[in-house]
């Protein structure tokens, strides 16, 4: 049986759904039920891992054959222009599918990875992600402002991935602007750090803001920078794993703002 894709939402807590059937006065029965739920969850996680492994290997192997043999056909210098164009389309489609598989695996991994919480400076991760974006597109003029001292308590690998997604989006959707402008800021609110990533890109229609975070939902076509529709689902999942919530807001003067909260770490 294939597992459905991990849904965006808090960690599955099957005990909630079953609570009405529980004999509340019987602690032992409750504990047994909790154990059963825990076992079921572990089994589901295991099945998800197996499924991810299957995707990783068994879907990519034929994809590699499609891409590679098309590349070999395209290398034929005597190919007619129309044929070459068709083969190149096959290759481009294979590359898109590979991107989709990578993102699906990432979404699944993000949902089941064990959190390794440590003190992380988010600003550094933001600078790092921007450096990668600059490297991929060196001709692009970009102005990035990052607040100093954005210390959070979280999983560094996942938080890097989160910033990659958010900054990558900000970058992509600023392609019509002369200059990419991104601002990363944060404000302490009790034990949490309330963060915001703002860009001056093309923004989005607020009527669809809830759809942004659902897997495979796109508000932009490929010409506008739209991708596989999993990036923000991954980002939301990462924030949720840290007990927070990611939300989006279109800025009145064009551009968007992604706000999220993470556990704050001590400043020093």
């Amino acid at each position: 049986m294939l597992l459905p894709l991990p849904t965006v939402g808090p960690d599955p807590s099957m005990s909630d759904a079953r609570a009405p059937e529980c004999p509340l006065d019987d602690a032992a029965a409750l504990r047994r039920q909790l154990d059963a739920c825990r076992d079921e969850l572990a089994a589901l996680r295991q099945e998800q891992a197996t499924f991810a492994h299957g995707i990783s290997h068994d879907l990519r192997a034929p994809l590699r054959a499609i891409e590679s043999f098309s590349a070999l056909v395209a290398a034929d210098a005597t190919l007619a222009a129309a044929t070459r164009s068709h083969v190149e389309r096959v290759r481009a489609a294979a590359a898109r599918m590979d991107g989709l598989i990578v993102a699906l695996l990432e979404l699944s991994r993000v949902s089941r990875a064990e959190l390794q919480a440590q003190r992380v400076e988010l600003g550094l991760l933001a600078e790092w992600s921007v450096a990668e974006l600059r490297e991929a597109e060196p001709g692009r003029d970009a102005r990035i402002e990052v607040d100093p001292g954005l210390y959070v308590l979280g999983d560094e690998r996942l938080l890097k991935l989160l910033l990659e997604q958010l900054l990558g989006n900000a970058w992509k959707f600023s392609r019509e602007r002369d200059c990419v402008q991104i601002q990363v800021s944060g404000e302490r609110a009790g034990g949490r750090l309330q963060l915001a990533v703002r860009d001056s890109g093309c923004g989005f229609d607020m009527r669809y803001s809830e759809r942004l975070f659902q897997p495979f939902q796109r508000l932009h076509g490929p010409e506008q920078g739209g991708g596989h529709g999993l990036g923000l689902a991954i980002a939301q999942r990462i924030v949720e794993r840290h007990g927070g919530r990611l939300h989006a807001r279109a800025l009145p003067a064009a551009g968007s703002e992604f706000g999220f909260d993470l556990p704050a770490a001590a400043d020093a």
Partner: protein
Amino acid sequence: MSTDRMPDERPARANAHREILLVEDNPDDIELTRIAFGEAKIANELTVVRDGAEALDYLFARGDHAGRDPHQLPSIVLLDLNLPKVDGREVLQAIRDNPVTRSLPVVVMTTSAEPFDVEASYALGVNSYIQKPVDFERFVWAVKQVGLYWLVLNQPRDSA
């Protein structure tokens, strides 16, 4: 590109002429690996075995490969993980458990980059773990790097 050429004054490595053992069940991948080695100008003979059981029969000179000299080891083993009969991890384990093959360079070349697979392979003593890129040019590049490193640069242990 001149940097891609093998240096002329390279020491005579025992590896330079020895075969490469490819353990791979997928015919497409076998063909692509052959083409990639060709494009990378790696002339070592490529011996292909189609599952983990045959890989072990070949290395330990038993079964269908009983006539082979078990001390004639390949220069390198390119190992897929998901194989019929005996899977790649078990092959790796058997190679590391046998004193004759213990030091044999084994490079896992597989489609998966699941942390679980990477971890298991290193725990079993793999020398290197390479995810086969979907993009063909990158695959050729990866094969070329593997060839340069293991067949030219690396000094293998003298085999008995």
